[in-house]
């Protein structure tokens, strides 16, 4: 199953749309200082202004520039998303691969714990924990990662197990290949696609949860984030401001998640040839 993932994703239109959306968000995050002349935290007397030449999306309730908040909000979303994605992936690999290779009681314990975590509604756990500890950004990332590696671990374990038994690995072992060689040359390329799909899942979940927590008001209030923008904007929904305050934040969040959804869909399709070919494409 040596498929060029990059190619597969780029070939599918869903993948292209998704990648474009993601690049757009990443560009907004990276280029935020260039795209807006306002500090997103800078308060000013002109509050709740309508969009104008100087404030493209107007200002919020304390005179902060909404456009610039939108751009910097991308940073928060992406930081949480990718941070959680990477850490939970690493945890997933750690537990998944070790469970597959060590096996026995250890494997059983890890897998039961994983199953248990899958049936517990994670958002509720996050809300409970966050309600107590009011996490700042690094803690939030760790918290979300700690609660979202389980699905990945299960998939990675299954994949590693099947690879352990698969023909070409046995064959190369019989030709005298060392463990490192096998891991590098055969195991890694075969699970890298699955890892990517899991990674994107993790990112998507994290972006969503960060926004949700901020919306509930249990995130770090000092952080400029889309969820918080929506929360703040919601309390002014009796005015017109929601059109350029709430909606852009919600749309930015949605587009990010849609981008991730499309990319993961394309990656999944690449993984499962049965789904290939008839894509949104």
């Amino acid at each position, binding site marked *: 199953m040596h498929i060029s993932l990059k190619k597969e994703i780029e070939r599918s239109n869903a993948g292209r749309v998704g990648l474009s959306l993601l690049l757009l968000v990443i560009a907004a995050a990276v280029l935020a200082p260039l795209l807006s002349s306002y500090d997103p935290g800078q308060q000013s007397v002109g509050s709740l202004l309508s969009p104008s030449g100087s404030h493209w999306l107007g200002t919020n309730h304390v005179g902060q520039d909404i456009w610039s908040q939108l751009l910097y909000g991308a940073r928060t979303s992406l930081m949480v998303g990718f941070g959680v994605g990477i850490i939970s992936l690493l945890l997933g690999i750690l537990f998944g691969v070790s469970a597959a290779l060590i096996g026995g009681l250890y494997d059983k314990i890890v897998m039961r714990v994983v199953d248990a975590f*899958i049936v517990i509604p994670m958002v509720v756990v996050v809300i409970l924990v966050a309600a107590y500890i009011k996490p700042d950004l690094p803690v939030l990332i760790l918290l979300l990662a700690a609660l979202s590696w389980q699905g990945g671990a299960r998939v990675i374990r299954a994949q590693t197990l099947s690879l352990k038994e698969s023909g070409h690995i046995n064959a190369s072992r019989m030709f005298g290949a060392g463990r490192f060689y096998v891991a590098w040359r055969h195991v890694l390329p075969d699970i890298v696609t699955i890892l990517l799909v899991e990674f994107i899942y993790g990112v998507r979940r994290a972006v969503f949860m960060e926004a949700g927590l901020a919306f509930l008001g249990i995130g770090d209030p000092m952080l400029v984030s889309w969820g918080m923008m929506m929360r703040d904007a919601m309390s002014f929904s009796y005015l017109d401001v929601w059109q350029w305050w*709430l909606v852009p934040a*919600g749309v930015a969040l*949605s587009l990010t998640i849609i981008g991730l959804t499309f990319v993961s869909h394309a990656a999944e399709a690449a993984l499962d040839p049965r789904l290939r070919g008839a894509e949104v494409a």
Partner: protein
Amino acid sequence: MLNRRNLVTYSIAFLFILALNFLMPRMMPGDPLSAIYGDEVLVAMAPEFKAHLVESFALDEPMWRQFGAYILALFQGDMGYSYYYNASVFSVIIGSLPWTLLVVGSSLVLSTLIGIALGIESGWRRGSRTDRTMLAGLMSLNGFPDFFLGLVLLLVFGVLMGIFPLAGALTPYSGLSGFSLVVDVMKHMALPVTALTLAHLAGVYLLTRNTMITVLKAPFMLTARAKGLSQRRLKYHHAGRNSMLPVLTVTGIWLGRLVTGALFVELVFAYPGVGYLTYQALLTRDYPLIQGIFLIVAIAVLIANFAVDLLYPKLDPRVSYAH
């Protein structure tokens, strides 16, 4: 069928939930009493009254004894006392639970039915324009967080167009009864249920569609076509029936997502369910209530998963006889 593996899984999940409830209050800074009374009119409560409260809620005892008492009480069905509501946590939650069940239940049924129907349709015509449009549309829909959908629905249909009520589960003291009361309740739940359903539709749809595509290539589909069956029967009775099954296996997990989705959506619509209660509890820092809600929601989802595990064999003959 329920096997030992499942039992172990559920036990671990249950223990984890309890342990969290044990551990989280330990991390609380300060004493819980300050969260009981806020800053509305009287700034400081009289020290005498404070002492009275500390005594009556046993807050002066060491933490571990409070935990011990909590667990003991839990197994006696006592989930604690909400200082804010002046009522037992259990009774507070029970009051809100039916509304959440109504919203979540309706969304679960609707999103499952519509998701399966669309998934079957889309998978059946895979590759067609209809399929591609549906896939793109629903995957996009999947990206919209439920609370954002809720807000937009509320603003558009509630505020701008004024078609739907702005808040609540029914018109209070409207004197309605019978059918008109049902209509009133339906009108109130229409937007929250729509938001939840739309946000969760895509998951069901995608799973059904993927299964459908696989099922369509199964040998029994060829058999069925050879039998000269109508398209309709092929699509629903043969392919559809098989495509539904994987969706049903994940209903429990789905339900978990819907419940958490309801937490957000109820907040948006001020819908008097557990989600709204959670938000209030967070605002008022009513920790016993937060703990209680967490416990009930988590356990409810566990039970739902458990129930699906038990029920699934009745739906999929392959599983029921596998043991």
